[in-house]
């Protein structure tokens, strides 16, 4: 993949220009479907866009020193990493990629979570610290399952290339892996039942308590882009391979939309779990299956 293709994928499709409206669209879909399931109307269609513009027009509190610089930097890093993650998705079949871009995608998907944790600590606010501590515990818990599931799929197919993974044959291991990833995605996206770091009434917005104005707009944008990247990853791994690009793109988009609806149903149907229940869920229940998956992948590889 040469520089021109890389820049086109990062900035145009499926990168910045295309991903930002899709991020706003997915944010709206989540809010609107949760509202419909609660017998409400919900926000109008352009609501995330208007929220973004309004936040750009607000002033930020003055901050001095290294903390101030760091606080300004974390949301920008989060947005850049999320855009990069979306740009790596193989939406167009055979659009180029490189060996190991799965690893890069996973790393870029982790960066917004790390930025939230760092932002909570560098805001030097009590509520930010508590929220960041919760986010850190949550990240450690679901990441093990998430990474083990993806690695076991990739490992069993001898490849770390996203395009090759998109064209996998349908094995039970692949669908079990997708199921495990789907269990981890609500925690990554901070939606119920794993919306612990955002617990509003408990810790005043958690890690983002001290953020305002354009920085907050960047955090909302990175959250929306995380939605796009995470649902795109699941769509990549779960969809069957389609040869024609004019069929592949709508199917990819429709599948991502379906996953957003599924996650909204989950968010509307459950309540927020406390930290001990969350950790117990990921470490006791799902970790067993993830370990089983990686060991069966190892076993299959050794046998073949």
């Amino acid at each position: 993949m040469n520089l021109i293709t890389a820049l086109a994928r990062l900035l145009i499709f499926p990168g910045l220009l295309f991903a930002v409206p899709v991020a706003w669209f997915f944010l709206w879909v989540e809010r609107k479907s949760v509202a419909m399931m609660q017998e409400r109307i919900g926000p109008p269609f352009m609501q995330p866009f208007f929220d973004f513009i309004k936040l750009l027009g607000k002033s930020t509190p003055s901050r001095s020193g290294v903390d101030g610089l760091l606080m300004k930097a974390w949301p920008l890093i989060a947005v850049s990493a999320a855009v990069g993650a979306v740009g790596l998705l193989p939406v167009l079949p055979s659009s180029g990629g490189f060996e190991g871009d799965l690893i890069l995608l996973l790393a870029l998907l982790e960066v917004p979570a790390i930025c939230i944790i760092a932002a909570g600590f560098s805001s030097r606010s009590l509520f930010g610290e508590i929220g960041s501590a919760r986010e850190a515990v949550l990240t450690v818990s679901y990441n093990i399952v998430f990474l083990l599931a993806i690695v076991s799929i990739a490992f069993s197919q001898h490849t770390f290339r996203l395009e090759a993974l998109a064209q996998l044959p349908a094995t039970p291991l692949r669908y079990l892996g997708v199921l495990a990833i789907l269990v981890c995605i609500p925690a990554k996206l901070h939606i119920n039942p794993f919306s612990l770091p955002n617990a509003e009434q408990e810790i005043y917005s958690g890690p983002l308590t001290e953020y305002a104005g354009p920085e907050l707009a960047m955090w909302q944008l990175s959250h929306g882009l995380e939605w796009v990247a995470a649902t795109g990853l699941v769509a990549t791994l779960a969809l069957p391979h389609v040869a024609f690009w004019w069929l592949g793109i709508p199917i990819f988009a429709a599948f991502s939309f379906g996953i957003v609806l599924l996650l909204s149903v989950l968010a509307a149907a459950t309540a927020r779990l406390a930290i001990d229940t969350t950790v117990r869920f990921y470490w006791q229940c799902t970790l067993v299956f993830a370990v089983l998956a990686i060991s069966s992948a190892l076993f299959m590889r050794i046998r073949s």
Partner: protein
Amino acid sequence: MNILTMMWRNVRRGAMTLRFPARPPVPSGFRGLVRFDPALCTGCAVCRFRCTARAIAFSSAKTEFTWSYDPGQCTFCGRCVEGCKTHALSQEPSCPPVYLTIGNLKTSYTLARKPPAPKNGAAAPPPAGDRTKQPTKGDAQ
């Protein structure tokens, strides 16, 4: 599974929300802004005595009195309405409006005192001065 059936029913039934400027009807007997009927008021000031929030102010001179009411101060309890013997006060069955400046909703009325009622069948004395009804409102928003 109960929650999922509930959510499915909610989606099928559609939203129960009132679209924005629409407001629900207030129940019967709702206690809103206090209305004053100048024709019935005798100037006894029982309403000022009974008011829990000092929303009703009353000042009186020999031939006239001023009754004023500040809805911003009012707690809409209805004690003034209960205490008025001539039923000059009543409460509107609707929500008081939103306002932008303190004192915007204040109303006050200056009325001349009625002549006393005749005793023992004697002829009624001629009325002293006429009842001037000058409701003065603060500028509404």
